[in-house]
C-alpha cells in the first residue's frame, strides 16, 4: 500500500503541446481517488506518467514519499484495470489470474495459493475453470480485478473501467466495484469522464480540464461548492444553468436582474455583496435548485416551458431564458404544457456567482466558511 503524490507535474509532448500543466495533488494511502474530466483534459497522460508508461516532462511523482520519476513500470508495483478488461479469452479464469505471477516465475504452489485466495475474496471460486470468453460482464470485471490484485500492488489504477457498459449494468458495476475496492483497502486511482461514477464511488475527486486541475475535494464539497464555472457545469446531471446578470442595489437591498427575470437576494447574499461589490456577474443554478409553481407569488419569475422530459420519478422541465434554455428538475409526475408560463424561484442556499472574466466562483471562500 502507498500514498501517491504529484508535485508540479507537467507533460509536454512534441510541438509544445502541454497535456498536463503543473498538476499537484496527493492521494492518501488506501484512498479511492478519482481523476475526472472530459476527453483531452490530461487525465490519461497523468495516469500514464504515474504508471511509468510515459516520461515526466517536469515535476516529481512520489509513492510513499519516494521519488518514482526514474523507476521503470515494473518497479513501481502498479496494477491496471482497463476499459475492456483485457482478459485472455482462450484462458480459464484461473490462468488469467495466475498470468502475472507466472510472468514473475513464481513457484506453482505459491501461485496456486495466491490465485485461490484472490478467487475466494472476489467470489470467483465456482467459475475458476470457466473459459474467459464465456463470462458475464460482472464476472469479467471481477476476474480483471483479481488479476490486478493477485500480485499485491501498491497502487491500483482503473482507466474508465465501466464507462462503455449499458446504463443499467453500469449502475450495478459501480456498486460492486466500490464494495470490492473498499474491502481490498488498496490505494485506488480511478480515471473517468463520467461525473456520476466519480461522485458515487470516490473518497475525493480531482477535476481536470485542459491539462489543469480545477478543483480537488470530496464529492459533496465539489458538488455544493464548485471552485469555478467549469466545475459547476461539469458536475451534476443534468448540468447547471448559467446566465449573465446585473447586480442591482437599492436601499441596501441587492437584487439580480437579467432580461428574462429578476429577483431579490436574501440576507446571506446581501452581506456577501456588501463586502465584495460586483456589477455584472454570471449566475449559476442547478436544475434541482429551481423550484417551480403554477401560481405566481412574491419574488418569483415567470418563464415559458419549452420542453418536458419524463424520467420516471423525476421530470426535467426546460424553460426559456432569453436566447438560452434553463433546465429544472422536479420530483414526481409534474406535467406542464409546452408554451405555458410557470413561476420559478431559485433556492438561494445553493446558487453561485461566477466572475465574467475568469469564471471563478466569486464567493468561494465565503461558501466554504459556512
Amino acid at each position: 500500500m502507498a500514498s501517491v503524490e504529484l508535485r508540479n507535474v507537467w507533460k509536454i509532448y512534441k510541438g509544445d503541446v502541454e497535456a498536463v500543466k503543473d498538476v499537484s495533488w496527493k492521494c492518501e494511502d488506501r484512498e479511492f481517488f478519482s481523476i475526472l474530466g472530459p476527453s483531452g483534459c490530461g487525465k490519461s497522460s497523468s495516469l500514464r506518467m504515474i504508471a511509468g508508461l510515459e516520461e515526466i516532462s517536469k515535476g516529481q511523482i512520489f509513492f510513499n514519499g519516494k521519488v518514482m520519476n526514474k523507476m521503470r513500470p515494473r518497479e513501481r508495483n502498479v496494477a491496471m484495470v482497463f476499459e475492456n478488461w483485457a482478459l485472455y479469452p482462450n484462458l480459464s479464469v484461473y490462468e488469467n489470474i495466475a498470468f502475472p505471477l507466472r510472468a514473475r516465475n513464481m513457484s506453482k504452489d505459491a501461485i496456486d495459493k495466491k490465485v485461490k485466495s484472490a478467487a475466494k475474496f472476489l467470489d470467483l471460486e465456482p467459475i475458476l475453470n470457466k473459459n474467459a470468453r464465456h463470462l458475464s460482464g460482472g464476472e469479467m470485471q471481477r476476474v480483471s480485478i483479481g488479476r490486478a490484485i493477485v500480485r499485491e500492488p501498491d497502487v491500483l489504477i482503473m482507466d474508465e473501467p465501466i464507462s462503455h457498459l449499458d446504463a443499467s449494468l453500469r449502475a450495478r458495476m459501480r456498486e460492486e466495484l466500490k464494495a470490492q475496492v473498499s474491502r481490498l483497502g488498496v490505494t485506488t486511482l480511478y480515471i473517468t469522464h463520467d461525473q456520476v461514477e466519480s461522485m458515487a464511488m470516490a473518497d475525493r475527486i480531482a477535476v481536470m480540464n485542459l491539462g489543469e486541475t480545477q478543483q480537488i475535494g470530496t464529492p459533496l464539497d465539489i458538488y455544493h461548492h464548485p471552485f469555478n464555472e467549469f466545475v459547476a457545469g461539469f458536475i451534476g446531471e443534468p448540468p447547471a444553468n448559467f446566465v449573465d446578470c446585473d447586480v442591482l442595489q437599492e436601499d441596501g437591498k441587492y437584487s439580480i436582474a437579467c432580461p428574462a427575470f429578476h429577483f431579490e437576494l436574501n440576507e446571506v447574499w446581501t452581506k456577501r455583496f456588501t463586502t465584495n461589490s460586483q456589477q455584472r456577474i454570471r449566475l449559476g443554478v442547478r436544475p434541482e435548485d429551481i423550484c417551480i409553481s403554477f401560481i405566481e407569488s412574491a419574488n418569483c419569475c415567470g418563464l415559458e416551458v419549452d420542453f418536458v422530459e419524463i424520467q420516471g420519478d423525476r421530470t426535467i422541465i426546460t424553460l426559456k431564458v432569453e436566447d438560452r434554455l434553463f433546465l429544472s428538475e422536479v420530483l414526481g409526475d409534474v406535467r406542464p404544457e409546452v408554451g405555458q408560463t410557470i413561476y420559478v424561484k431559485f433556492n438561494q442556499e445553493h446558487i453561485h456567482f461566477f466572475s465574467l472574466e475568469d469564471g471563478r466562483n466569486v464567493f468561494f471562500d465565503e461558501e466554504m466558511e459556512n
Partner: protein
Amino acid sequence: MASLELQNITKTFGKKIALDDVSFKCKEGEMFCLLGASGAGKSTCINVISGVVQPDAGKVLLGGEDCSDAFPQARNVATAFENYALYPHMTVRENLLFPLNSPIRKKRSSKAEKEARVREVAEMLGIQELLERHPQELSGGQKQRVALGRTLVRRPNMFLLDEPISHLDAKLRHRMRSELKRIQREFGVTTLYSTPDQLEALSMADTVAVIREGVVQQIGTPDEVYYKPRNIFVAQFLGDPPMNLLPVDYQGDFAVVDCQSPYKLPIPRKDQNLLNEKIGSCQIVIGVRPRDIRFVNPDDPSALTKGTIKIVETLGQTTIVNVQVVSEEIKVKTHTDSVPKVGTQIGMAYDLDNLYYFDRDTSLSI
C-alpha cells in the same frame, strides 16, 4: 410520413428465437421506442422493418399497406445506425448528398435541387458550418447530426434509429436526448428508435414497447409503463435504481414479508379491496420503489424494518443507499442531507400509497 404496424412477426436464427409473435402499432408522426437489454431482439426488429431481414412469419405494414415482400429501397425507410456509418473519405456535404445520388433517385432531381436540399437539412440541424469537414474532424454529437441529416435528405416515410445515443459521452447524452426529440417534432417524422437505457425511453418517446427475449412485455406511454407496469420485469427495468421486490404472505390488513427477519407491512384499505377481489393465493410479491423509502430512527414507530447501511453512492442532491437487512439488500434513494454513515443501524418507513403488487407465479401485476 406513414404509420407503421407489425403483425405477429416471428423470426428465428437457427434455434434462437429472436422475435416471438411481435405486434405493435406506431402512429403517424409518433416517436416510438423499443426498450430492452442487449440481445432482446431490438436490432432484429429494426432490420425486419427496414426489410434487411425477412421474418419467418407475420406482416409489416407501412402507411396501412402490406410491404412484407417489398425490397428495402422500395420501403423508403431511413435507418441511422449506432456507429453512424459515415463515409470517412467524404466530406459532410458528400455524405449528405450520397442518398440523393443512389441509382433509384439519381435522375429525380437536378444537381441544384440536391444541393439546396442538403443545405436546407444542414441548416435545420445546425451543421451548415461543417459541410466541408471530414467525419474524423467531427465530435460525437456532430457525427450523430450528420448521420441523421443523411437520413433526412431523402424525405423518408419513417426513421429507424438503432441505439442513437446510448454510446455517447455522458455529458452529451442529455443534450442529444432533447435535441433528437426536438428534431423529430420539427420534421414530424414517424420515428422508431431502440435503446437499452430506460431514461432514454421515458424522456423521448410518445409510446414505449418493452421487449425481453423477443417477446413484447408491455406497450404504453412513458407514464403507463413507469406507474402501471404490467409485470415484474417491466417494473424492475424502468426506474433507477430498480424497484425492491418483497415476497410476502398477504393476510388482510397487513402482509408479512417473507425473509430471514419477517416483518409486517400494513396494506392500505383501497389496496386491500383490490387484492381481496383479484388474488387467488396469498403468496404475492410487493414492489417498493427506492424513492418511496424513508430513513427513520430504528425505534421510531413508523419503522417497518431495520437494517445496516452497506453502500452509499452520492450523486449530488440524491444519494443511493444499499441497506443490508439480514441476508437481503434494500435500495433506497434519498436526499443527500439525510444520509447516515456506512455501518449505521437504521429504520426504514415505506410510503404505503405507492406499493406495487404482483402475482408470485405469473409475475403479472395484480
